[in-house]
């Protein structure tokens, strides 16, 4: 890993390219006021910042109000991003048609959701049903009354608790608007109220926009099932046309993959001297596509520049979120073409082809051809690191239940439940389960925290589910191979052998943390124990984006303790620090545990899990 980084640094030096490592140096030291969350730029009386001699802003807002407002605006940003992704997919579902670019791949899932939402299905064309479901989904963003439909999937305890605390989210857009309004100059200054609204906004992401993103993607592109793939920069091929897909929304990339498999496109690539077209993914677009097609993963967030630095990428096509603006100038250092496709993500130095679901396949063909035409422009100086690892990915909730079914005994058990998993947890064969999610962050060594924590957990019989950049870190480290059972404690190892799974389950992209919510909810229901009491926790060791804070909030509000390896930017307010760690625990039974040392963080995680076991008497 370090060796690869060095190789790529040399490539960057030769090409005169700048990378995040250079910029990180230039940005150090970072602004202390920003880091502590006590710089207020919300009105033009400011900016104000809290110092020992200035304990209040001009309007009188104290450190708690300022840090609280900044924090909850962070959440709103994350919720907006995730939920808008969900909305885009809903729009694609709304224009799906039998002979169009986008068809219904998981009819059963659509029918289940139609039933859940009271949409008639008898004697109706499946596309008519799909369009009605999509419309109802879209209404969830702006409906004037009531709370979100998906909340009814939660356990009764949670629903009741949210109701009592008045944090059951209303329309998704409304929660985001409420945050913006509450934090406007001269509105809420009470940190606790801000934290409560933060949870409500987060919940509208997890149990709203993200869940819709996941469900509608499954309906359109198929619910993932276990599939083999490979991960790391070594998946790039030196004699093929390499196209990188990057971002989060799978709609465009689904078409890029389809186009790259068309025989005339392959012929075209050959006519240009390449062996074929190789698609490799970055970030969550990679997760989405690999879960459904086994498309290889070039890497995660902080590897996006590394992929370009190989000099072997003909084209990078991006959709939304986590795309470095630096890709514009960086791709100019090589022959690489840079294509943006969404109004949401417009970047200088890119060619913009606006995604249109009606003509997406043709657009995708054009983009792939553009890459093929660019193959001949590839320079002679290429450097593809040879590292890659095999991985089994694609563990949707449905796929997990299917694996669990294989360890049931038909004479005593029922099929289609999480009971076998509950039995493993209850008996102590598995000590607990942890969802490890989130990004990379230059504040810590890339992937190191993810990997160290995962290894320690599985050695302690704690099963791990992952999404997002964490999933890719695990895949690159070989932890998603079935052979990784050898790194596990005896209990988890036996579970892996009997259920034929790797110890670290890839559950998808960052919107797919909604799958983890459903998994934990399913376990809670099967066990009849409230989520907050289960030996199950969440962890974001290297998080950086606003989305991560939104996620952390819905995870906590759903009753799951969340361990953070990067400090949220509220340190300047003791009250805020107290609120996000212990304060929420009093309200929803869970909070943040923060430690920037991954080894200490995982130790406290294991202790936390054991404490929950002791409390349950198991």
């Amino acid at each position, binding site marked *: 890993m370090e060796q690869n980084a060095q190789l790529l640094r040399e490539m960057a030096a030769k090409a005169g390219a700048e990378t995040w490592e250079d910029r990180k140096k230039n940005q150090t030291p970072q602004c202390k006021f920003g880091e502590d969350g006590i710089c207020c730029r919300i009105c033009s009386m400011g900016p104000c910042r809290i110092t020992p001699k200035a304990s209040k802003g001009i309007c009188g807002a104290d450190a708690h109000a300022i840090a609280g407002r900044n924090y909850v605006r962070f959440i709103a940003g994350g919720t907006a991003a995730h939920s808008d992704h969900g909305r885009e997919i809903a729009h694609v579902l709304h224009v799906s048609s039998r002979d169009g670019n986008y068809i219904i791949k998981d009819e059963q899932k659509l029918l289940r959701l139609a039933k859940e939402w009271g949409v008639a299905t008898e004697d109706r064309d499946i596309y008519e049903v799909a369009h009605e479901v999509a419309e109802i989904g879209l209404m969830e963003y702006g409906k004037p009354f009531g709370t979100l439909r998906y909340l009814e999937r939660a356990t009764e305890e949670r629903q009741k608790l949210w109701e009592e605390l008045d944090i059951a989210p209303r329309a998704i857009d409304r929660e985001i608007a409420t945050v913006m309004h509450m934090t406007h100059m001269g509105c809420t200054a009470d940190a606790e109220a801000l934290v409560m609204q933060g949870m409500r906004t987060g919940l509208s992401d997890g149990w709203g926009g993200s869940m819709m993103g996941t469900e509608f993607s499954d309906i359109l592109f198929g619910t993932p099932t276990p599939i083999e793939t490979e991960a790391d920069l070594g998946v790039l091929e030196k004699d093929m046309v390499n196209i990188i897909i990057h971002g989060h929304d799978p709609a465009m990339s689904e078409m890029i993959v389809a186009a790259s*498999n068309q025989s005339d496109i392959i012929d075209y690539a050959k006519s240009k001297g390449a062996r074929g077209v190789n698609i490799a993914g970055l970030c969550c677009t990679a997760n989405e596509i690999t879960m459904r097609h086994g498309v290889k993963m070039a890497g995660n967030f902080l590897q996006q520049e590394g992929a370009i630095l190989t000099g072997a990428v003909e084209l990078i096509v991006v959709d939304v979120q986590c795309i470095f603006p630096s890709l514009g100038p960086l791709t100019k250092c090589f022959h690489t073409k840079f294509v943006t496709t969404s109004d949401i993500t417009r970047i200088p130095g890119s060619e913009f082809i606006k995604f249109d679901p009606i003509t997406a396949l043709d657009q995708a063909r054009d983009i792939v051809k553009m890459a093929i035409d660019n193959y001949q422009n590839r320079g002679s100086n290429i450097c593809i690191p040879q590292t890659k690892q095999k991985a089994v990915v694609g563990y949707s909730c449905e796929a997990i239940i299917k694996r669990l079914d294989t360890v049931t*005994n*038909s004479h005593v058990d029922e099929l289609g439940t999480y009971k*076998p998993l509950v039995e493993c947890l209850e008996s*102590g064969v598995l000590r607990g389960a942890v969802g490890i999610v989130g990004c990379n962050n230059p504040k810590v060594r890339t992937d190191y925290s993810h990997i160290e924590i995962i290894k320690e957990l599985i050695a*302690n019989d704690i099963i791990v589910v992952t999404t997002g950049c964490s999933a890719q870190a695990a895949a690159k480290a070989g932890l998603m191979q079935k052979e990784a059972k050898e790194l596990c404690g005896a*209990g988890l190892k036996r579970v892996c052998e009997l259920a034929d799974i790797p110890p670290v389950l890839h559950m998808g992209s960052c919107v797919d943390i909604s799958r983890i919510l459903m998994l934990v909810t399913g376990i809670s229901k099967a066990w009849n124990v409230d989520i907050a009491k289960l030996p199950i926790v969440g962890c974001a060791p290297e998080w950086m984006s606003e989305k991560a804070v939104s996620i952390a909030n819905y995870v906590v509000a759903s009753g799951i303790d969340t361990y953070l390896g990067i400090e949220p930017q509220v340190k300047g307010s003791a009250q805020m620090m107290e609120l996000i760690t212990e304060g929420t625990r009093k309200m929803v039974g869970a909070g943040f545990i923060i430690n920037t040392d991954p080894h200490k963080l995982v130790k406290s995680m294991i202790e936390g899990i054991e404490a929950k076991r002791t409390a349950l008497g198991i």
Partner: protein
Amino acid sequence: MTLIDRVFRGSDEMYELAVKATQEALDKFGADKAVSFPETAYSLPCLYSFTAKKITTLGELSAALEDIKAMMTRERRVKDVFSTGIATALSAEVIEAIKYVMEDNPYTGDYCGHLSDAQIRELGVPLVTKDIPGVAVLIGPAPSDEEAAKIIRDYQSKGIIVFLVGGIIQQAVRSGVNMNFKVRILPLGEDLSAVAHVISVALRAALIFGNVPAGDYEGMCKYTFERIFAFVNAYAPLSDMTVACGGGAIALGFPVITNETENIWRIPKSLIVQENTEAFVETSLEARDIKIKITKVDVPLCLAPAFEGEIIRRGDMQIQIDGSKNNCFELAMAKDLTEIEDHKIVLDGPDFDAIPEGGEMSMGIIVEVGGKAMQSDFEPVFERKFHNYLNCLEGVMHTGQRDMIRIRVSKAAYAAGFRAKHIGEVLYAKLKNDFESVIDKCQVTIVTDPDKVKELRFNLANPAYDKRDERLKSLTDENVDKFYSCILCQSFSPSHVCIVTPERLGLCGAVSWLDAKATNELDPNGPCGVVTKGGLIDERVGKWEDVNQSIRELSHGALDAVTLYSIMEDPMTSCGCFECICGIEPFSNGVIIVNREHGGMTPLGMTFAEMASMTGGGVQTPGFMGHGKHFIGSKKFMKAEGGVARIVWMPKHLKELTATRLNATAKELYGIDNFVDMIGDETITEDAEALLNFLTEKGHPVLGMEPMM
């Protein structure tokens, strides 16, 4: 009190007993007193397996107690449960060894105690061949003497070797169960510590047959987990010591099935609570994935491949089930395991007796199968076997498939007592035996009520067939990620390899891509292997590097390359069992196709047999190629040479058979309507020149195509 605590506590108890017994023996005989089990080269085999120490004296045994103690680690993890559980078994072995110190022959009368190495070696072969499909360890007393006898005999009747520990032994004695090594029922001893003798058997198997080095903890557990199909039935109430022994059993991979409900925790496939002790047998077999071979099929007729070709003439016929006259069908359906009651055979409607001699009846045969590795893609594979299975019955003839079946039962078979439900018995037994890796449970319903058969045919069977056809139709060579090889015919054509793709089935006509896929998944080392699609060399002729690689390996170097879509460039080889052969017709620049059933002459001046002799035997003969009938309508047929437009002549019968698909393909590829009418047949001419005139008259597209040679 958690499960882990119970294991720890039980282990401490057993250890204390071992310490006490050792001390008593030491006090009585001193440290130099010899310690051994009779007729074994492995000293105290359990201790030897895990510590690599051969104990010979009481002094050494006393020292070994420290080794045992060291294994009783106390972190709260499964590894501690496992090693503590195994330490419990070692403590038990110490206790048992002391018995052999205290008395020359501690086990007499009803009990057998330690087993000799010779006995274990005798068990080796039947365990490997699965003649002994499993090893049951019963720790009890059972709820009653009768139940004890019943479960022991049930296991015995399935060929499973049974080890008994505790009160169940006297229950068996009272019930008159004959127990000894020959009948494979072994009453080990009354005390729980006697379980050491069966663990000793498993571990010596690892030492003797597995060559696992003594002291290799992981190796021992891996061997027993993967190769010794043992399980434990422990009757309630369970003491902590029994739970601790259970921990050891699970460490070795042996699931424990118990009816204990107090203070117990369920663990999938490892610790199973079955409150109904009468269901212990079935529950245990499933828990340890033990499949029992059915050796006796309950039918009054002979069942053997020798009867496969037997014809039942109308005059000999008692009853006929004929899909062309009455509603009939046969259907295999994959179901959830919980929806199936294994070996349930139901007759719904009148039996053969209700029909006068020589009469006809409706029949729907529904076979529902379930299993953890089941896929609905396997259904047609099972269903096609019905034909072979029923034909193996003496006096029963079966032809056709789906809702076009015909079954005849002879008068002799009827007189011998053959009735409708026996069809179910045969299908049940044969399917379960042939597909034991995927069929865990199977039930058969024979419907003969004419109204019900009609209803099921149109509402159940036909939609199921349609769905399968739909699935097959949706598959193309482009949209799958792998092909399959088939070398079923290599037994008589050693270098022939078929590459089966969605659009090109095997040349025998019997192996579609889905069939090959299912065959591969049912038996990955069987005749069908996966061929990846990597390294496309030439899409026009269908040439892939990976395909060539497979061909080279599977033909043992006889072939270097094949194309999937050309008959001129490296065409696929033929064995001898192709349904059809096509060959170049030089006058028209097209090809003729003849099917095996056609005995007459062709415009090439050769019959099917003569043409067949040109190819076959696994050699490539450009211009000639064997293939399946279904391939004729495929868009990939001779794609490299221009596709189906090359076909100029076929026997009339074959034209009729393939017309629908062929016309559709020609319409799609060239926009030609009723293409089949442009193709010659034997009623038009068998002469090459006359054929050319016919083709010219019809405006056959081949005449405008590039020459093939």
